[in-house]
């Protein structure tokens, strides 16, 4: 808890004390299948795994393996066809309100300033929604603090289209985090960025997570990204997507970018690479 306070993101008091119900954000998949409407084949099948509160999980696999479907299941946007998804002991029946999401496209609203874009979730999600007018100044201060931690101080009043791609993605991540979700779902958030910006944003995400310890599910096709950021990497097979491997990443934290040049790091990346290669050959 101490590092949460230190993160400087807690300008407004936390509305739901996390300590009351113990740490939250535990996700469990129990033999989950999902078929999209009009398709006989399952998009994902027989997925069973458990994600602990505060765990950083990465899902990797060849393209079209149902990684994004996995996200939709975890967030409750798509109901499981068979099996069940359980979050904090509750079976998921509809969209969860404790998640924040960010995608490859930043999907910021072009008519809102960066600050107003980040404030959007607070205008929608309870308990902030009902107090939004009264607490606007405090919330804006929180959003500014969050923007500052990702290096966007001074850009609050710019419009998204005046920012670079990397800056837009930072703002998008801020938007996903401003309502202090228990769970952050990221669907290839850095996929459209150049290599330097991507590594910069890895560190931004690492620091945010280190400070706040929400649960993260990161879907990516970048193995280095997965190994650098995650505690556990799951490898999915081609459609119908199954989890074919689970690899704990035991590299010490906090991790510096230099770790990506160590043998231990390369070893894990190679191991995952081989697994995916094996899937692609079949």
């Amino acid at each position, binding site marked *: 808890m101490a590092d949460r306070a230190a993160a400087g993101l807690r300008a407004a008091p936390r509305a739901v004390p996390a300590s009351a119900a113990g740490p939250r954000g535990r996700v469990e998949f129990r033999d989950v299948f999902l078929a999209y409407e009009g398709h006989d084949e399952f998009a994902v099948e027989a997925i069973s795994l458990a994600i602990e509160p505060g765990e950083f999980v990465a899902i990797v696999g060849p393209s079209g393996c149902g990684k994004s479907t996995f996200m*939709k299941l975890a967030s409750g946007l798509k109901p499981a066809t068979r099996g069940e998804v359980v979050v904090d002991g509750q079976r998921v029946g509809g969209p969860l309100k404790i998640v924040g999401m960010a995608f490859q496209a930043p*999907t910021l609203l072009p008519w809102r300033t960066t600050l107003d874009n980040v404030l959007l979730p607070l205008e929608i999600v309870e308990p902030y929604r009902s107090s939004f007018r009264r607490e606007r100044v405090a919330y804006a201060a929180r959003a500014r603090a969050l923007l500052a931690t990702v290096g966007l101080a001074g850009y609050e009043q710019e*419009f998204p289209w005046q920012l670079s791609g990397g800056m837009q993605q930072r703002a998008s991540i801020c938007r996903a985090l401003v309502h202090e979700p228990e769970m952050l779902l990221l669907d290839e958030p850095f996929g459209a960025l150049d290599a330097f910006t991507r590594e910069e944003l890895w560190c931004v995400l690492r620091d945010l997570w280190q400070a706040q310890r929400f649960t993260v599910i990161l879907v990516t096709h970048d193995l280095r990204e997965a190994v650098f950021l995650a505690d556990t990497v799951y490898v999915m097979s081609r459609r119908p997507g199954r989890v074919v491997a689970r690899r704990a990443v035991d590299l010490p934290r906090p991790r510096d970018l230099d770790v990506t040049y160590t043998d231990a790091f390369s070893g894990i990346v190679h191991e995952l690479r081989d697994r995916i290669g094996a899937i692609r050959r079949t």
Partner: protein
Amino acid sequence: MTPLSRRAERAAPWILAAVILVAWEAVCRGFRVSEFIFPAPTAIVAALVEFAGPIAGHAWKTFWTTMAGFAIGVAVGLLLGFVVGSSRVTYSAVYPLLVGFNSVPKAAFVPVLVVWFGIGTIPAILTAFLICFFPIVVNVATGLATLEPELEDVLRSLGATRRDVLFKVGLPRSLPFFFASLKVAITLAFVGTVVSETVASNDGIGYLMMSAGSSMRMPLVFAGLAVIGVMAMLMYELFAAVERRTTAWAHRGQAAA
């Protein structure tokens, strides 16, 4: 872009118009074209000056008739666009009917309106309305219906209601579409008014042109055409300016960004 080429760009439409007018005048004089067939620009200007009073009266009548029809068109267009675009069911239910309705020539509808409402202003207003609301509906509906799926996921995962999505994203997003449609709609509204006035009215520019044509006063007919053209162009520019001011974010390519 250098200042010189920018100035050239701004002057280009005026230069082209002047060239066309001079060529027109030259053709009329050179081939001695009769004024009853195809009047020269100078003859048209002379008619404009000679009949300035009556033309102004008829133009004013046409103008406010058009604006009345346009206002109804905007109100109905917005409402229908809202209904059509806000749900997939209404979209698939209403859209084909609207397309069918739009392909009926509105000029063919004027006699029906005359039977219902008599000769005069009301059929003209209604024709202007009927002809101009369709592009507004289509644009507003399109703006509402083409929401990015990822954005919808973000909002739904926050527990946003359909109303939230509509007011926070749908409406602001469809504004540029709406303003773009206004530019098209206002010129169409002028068409509607004039068509109806030509067939079933005792005043307005359409009526003026009709009666001037039947007495072979071609310069006056062309003067009427010119007046309508200028009015429609001015209104188009007005809405184009409104569009640029209100939705700068959608025109960032041209802006200083």
